[in-house]
């Protein structure tokens, strides 16, 4: 098997995640889809690292995970804050950010 298939899988996962971000209104689900996209990237990095016989890919994936963890922590607390004030976790409800 050609390890390029990992990349195809990564691309598909990424695309599915992106579509999810665009389609879902629940902020938590949107967040999960973002995580999915990050994971897809990680897979690609690891695969690239393997292809080039290089640890750098893994290291970047590692850092991505760290950043993703931070992001999740902050993001979820934002969601909670919003939910507390608006009683809703729908991203469409927070539409104050317009003209």
């Amino acid at each position, binding site marked *: 098997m050609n390890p390029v298939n990992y990349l195809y899988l990564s691309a598909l996962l990424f695309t599915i995640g*992106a579509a999810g*971000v*665009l389609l879902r*209104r629940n902020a938590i689900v949107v967040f999960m889809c973002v995580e999915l996209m990050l994971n897809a990237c990680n897979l690609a990095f690891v695969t690239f690292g393997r292809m080039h016989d290089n640890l750098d890919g893994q290291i970047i994936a590692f850092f991505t995970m760290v950043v993703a963890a931070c992001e999740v922590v902050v993001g979820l607390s934002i969601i909670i804050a919003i939910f507390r004030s608006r009683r809703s976790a729908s*991203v*469409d409800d*927070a*539409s*104050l*950010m*317009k*003209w």
Partner: protein
Amino acid sequence: MIETSSLASGALLANEGGGGLHSTAASGAFSALWLVVGLPLLGAVLLLVGGKRTNPFGHILATALALGSFVVGVLMFVTMLDKSGPGRSVDQHLWTWAPVNEFQADIGLHLDQLSMVFVLLITGVGSLIHIYSIGYMAHDENRRRFFAYLNLFVAAMLLLVLANNYLLLYVGWEGVGLASYLLIGFWQHKPSAATAAKKAFIMNRVGDFGLAVAIFLMFTTFGTFSFEDVLGGSATASDGTMTAIGLMLLLAACGKSAQFPLQAWLGDAMEGPTPVSALIHAATMVTAGVYLITRSAEIFDASPDAQLAVTIVGAITVLFGAIVGCAKDDIKKALAASTMSQIGYMILAAGLGPIGYAFAIMHLVTHGFFKAGLFLGAGSVMHGMNDEVDMRRYGGLRKYMPITFVTFGLGYLAIIGFPLLSGFFSKDKIIEAAFAKGGTSGWILGAVTLLAAGLTAYYMTRVMLMTFFGKERWKEAPAGAPADWHEPHPHESPVSMTGPMILLAFGSVFAGGLFALNDSFVKWLTPVTGFSHGDLPMSEWAVTGMAIAMVALGTAVAYLQYARREVPSVAPAASPVTVAARRDLYQDAINEGLVMRPGQYLTRLLVWFDNKGVDGFVGGLAAFVGGTSARVRRVQTGFVRTYALSMFGGTLLVVACTLMARMA
């Protein structure tokens, strides 16, 4: 402060008897030349800057300075009589004004026989009118200001006639316009006075436009605008250029001298105090046009077309003024129309070339005397008649103001050309010169001048009869008089007013004879203006006879109309010609219709265009941007997912582009 000019006299020997302005530097008594202008100017400055502090003595100071200027002028005259030939022409270079390479504008004065005549006339008549004004303006709270303006006028007028180049002449030219503006509008609280002043200034500016362009042309052609160089070089330049310069100078003269078609301001200018009318709008300023043309003799000599234009303008104005004068009931406006007509004579004469210049100036001087006298007389009459100006409300005044009657009467006789009085000699010479021009144009011009002589006699007799003879119409209240109307008490004016009138009457009687004696005046001016005898198509006596006959005819008709018949105290209905004359031959209507109204519409259109067009374009651009933004901002829905969508689209685009670039 005074640098003497280095204009040397080396070339003078070559020029004896010739025209042109070849002069020596001012020295000796002549070095005080600048004082002639300086004294009245100093007066004006002192009185204007000094303000109220100078109120008690302002009028005395101003009169003294005007007299001082006259004294210096006489001193110059005496000195000049001592000299001979070219020595009579002097230059005084004061300071360099605005030098830019070729353009060398200097402040410099030039005195020769021609300017001498004017200096004496201006300072002489000017001083008399200063004296007269002391009495006339005694009760005006702004008398100081009046005298300041009078002094300013005298200074500017002297600068005009003493300038040694056209640019400085332009300064004086506009200076007298300013003084005239200030003095016509002296009683500013009257809207009519303010309007008249503005009108005079603006019409004069139209003339000034001509003078400015003439100076541009001179500079472009000769690289200089001093009299000496321009007039000296005028024979070498092309006819077209000279004609253009001549016509532009004529335009200037028309504006200042109230000649057709820029004559409309003079009648309204009578809103000013009467001494002003006498000095500025009769004796001196309005004759500046004649001075300009005479001074530029070489230019006009070089261009027959321009000369023809000058004579045509003069001829039209002679008749125009005379016709208007026949119908006016306002004594000052009748005199103003007469002034216009008389200046028409001078302009016509000046247009005739060397055969006429000297006579134009001669008539100018005699006219200065008698017309100033007439105006002062009119002022005296008004002074005694509660400032009434309508002659139909006069009548039989000779008993009440005998001195005024006599002096006015002498002025009257002089102006109609009564034999052996001033006007007879000067006007007769102009009529002769007109005939002497020769050809059809000579006959036409001669006929016009003769006709005008008859009309002059008619309208002046009319003025005389309506004012001093006949029934005392002022005793009855006018129709629609205000409740507090009271009968005027005509009385003779104080000495300060009658004195100048008497002196001017002397001038009116004797000046002409003195000038004509032995052709002394012509000889005096010949070095400047040149002189040539024209060939009369008939004998001199025939011309004189015809002129006297016309005068007699005009007088007789007026006598029949205004002495034998009752003069109605309200203007009766009259023929269309009379109505037209009363309305100044519709000059104002024409000006309004041709210039003012279209101008107003144009202005209004442009204001609209500026707001809606130019600014509207800019504003529209801004509104367009604003509107577009308002529409585009709706893309910002505030929904995060919409933004995410567009980001995703952008990513797609970037990736696609990158790939495409790689594949390509």
